[in-house]
């Protein structure tokens, strides 16, 4: 299978197919960007042109200055950021336990975590609403953080476990012979070595929380606690004609997701094998 053994016609097909894939992957995002910079007066007359004859950032300035999107953006950053930090802390502990200890009930824990990845989460929409309403956790960012944290802990635990498995046990055992407690060895020796894995977990969880829609729709009905997906969707159903502004908001929602994608891209394979059920 050496490249030189292949004929020119093979490479033509190879690059042709790849060009098709790249075009298919990028075209929708390109169109999002294109409409977001098209002035309203050209939107319909130049509907299917690949680039408008005149472009403007007016939709962006409108969205940033005169709409609730900066608030939605802030809410989403708070929710996704807090979720990512809490999940990473909790799953570092449980992932470490899964990697280093043999304890009674370990198989049950693995089974429990696998089951939570398989069953339809949409089942929980109604009961969680019913449980959260009297606790004041509906219409609250805290409520969303609690839900997202629980949903992401199993996957993050498997992910952290796979990172801990890659670190030799001798390191902390040496520290424990020198008199350190296991928890101290974990904090001071193992965790610093796992920093790239921690960054990957933060990225995965942030991206998942940033995209979550159904529970945010159900649990939040007020604009001041809306996350970006909910805000964008209510905007779409209310002002369904202002495509330029909606797509400008869409491009803004894409930015943090793409940043975190760059952060975790190196760990994609490991992450997907750890939690193959997760999107």
């Amino acid at each position: 299978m050496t490249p030189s053994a292949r004929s020119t016609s093979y490479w033509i097909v190879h690059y042709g197919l790849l060009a098709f894939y790249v075009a298919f992957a990028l075209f929708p995002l390109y169109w999002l960007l294109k409409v977001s910079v098209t002035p309203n007066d050209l939107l319909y007359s130049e509907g299917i042109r690949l680039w408008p004859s005149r472009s403007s950032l007016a939709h962006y300035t409108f969205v940033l200055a005169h709409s609730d999107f900066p608030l939605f953006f802030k809410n989403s950053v708070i929710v996704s950021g807090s979720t990512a930090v809490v999940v990473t802390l909790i799953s570092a502990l449980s992932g470490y336990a899964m990697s280093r200890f043999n304890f009674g009930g370990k198989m049950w824990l693995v089974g429990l975590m696998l089951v939570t990845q398989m069953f339809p989460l949409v089942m929980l929409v109604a009961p969680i609403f019913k449980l959260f309403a009297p606790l004041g956790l509906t219409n609250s960012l805290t409520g969303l953080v609690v839900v997202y944290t629980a949903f992401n802990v199993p996957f993050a635990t498997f992910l952290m476990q796979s990172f801990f498995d890659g670190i030799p046990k001798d390191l902390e055992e040496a520290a424990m012979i020198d008199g350190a407690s296991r928890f101290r060895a974990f904090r001071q020796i193992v965790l610093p070595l796992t920093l790239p894995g921690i960054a990957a977990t933060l990225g995965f969880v942030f991206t998942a929380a940033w995209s979550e829609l159904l529970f945010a729709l159900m649990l939040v009905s007020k604009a001041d606690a809306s996350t970006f997906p909910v805000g964008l969707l209510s905007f779409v159903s209310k002002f369904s004609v202002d495509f330029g502004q909606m797509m400008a908001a869409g491009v803004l929602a894409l930015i943090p997701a793409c940043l975190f994608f760059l952060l975790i891209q190196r760990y994609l394979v490991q992450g997907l094998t750890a939690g193959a059920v997760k999107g």
Partner: protein
Amino acid sequence: MSTMPLHEEAAPRQRAGLRNLTLRLEPYLYIAPSVVLIATVMLVPLIIGLSYAFRDMQLINPFSGGFIGLEHFRTLWTDAAFWLSMKNTLVWTFASVALQFAFGLVLALLLNNSFPGRGIVQALVFLPWAVPTFLSGLNWAWLFNPVVGPLPHWMAALGILPAPENILSDPSVAIWGPIVANVWWGIPFFAITLLAALQSIPQDIYEAASIDGAGPWRRFTDITLPFLAPTIAIAVLLRTVWIANFADLIIVMTNGGPADQTQIVSSYIFTQAFRRLDFGYASAVAMVLLILLLAYSFVIILLRQSLLRR
């Protein structure tokens, strides 16, 4: 493991016993936060939700909440919208998984060669995976909209559509809108998983096969596919469950319409709970979905064991 003097006897034994206990409890302290959180936010609501299936639970009606036995399931049996959503779930899941897998496999095979520019190509084709699902749905809904999207015009020009209309509002083909969005978004998952498996196939096997005169197609069917088979099986099976549950794209793009023609079971559950606020009926439908998925997983496990025994 640490410093324990050997010459002391009676009192330290007690201390050692205590330390043994802490050592044995230690792993449980590490997993406690995760277990508590999963139990309270996932297991307890799951059990409560299952009980709703037998109760009259309507959020807007404060007098509801009484047990009504199997009433919801009787309604379900004659609910045409539910049976339609079952049929749509099959179409949605099968078409999405099959297309994602086929495109993902070809992409993984293409990326498994070394060629100039591979790194950048790989980052670009995997990018859709990073796009939040609600945005993928909206983005494709806009592309299918003849007012701002090019797709209806292109399809009309190619003769696929008689006129540049929105396929999302045509009941007979609307389900293909969310399927296309799902395929676009999900190809990277299969490509990444299969690429990892491809890269673990030892290269000398291919060389030996070439020397023995095996052509490219022979090498693909006799080496690549058997090596990939376990990964393919696991990825397809898990992905099937995941996609059958995946309602976001449908909620965003069509909300189940027109005339419930794109409603799948999980989006039907969400619609019942979110729009009609009928938590009881939503939970009854959810229970049916859960039982079907359990049955599916059970069949898969049996199949796997009978294959392993062979």
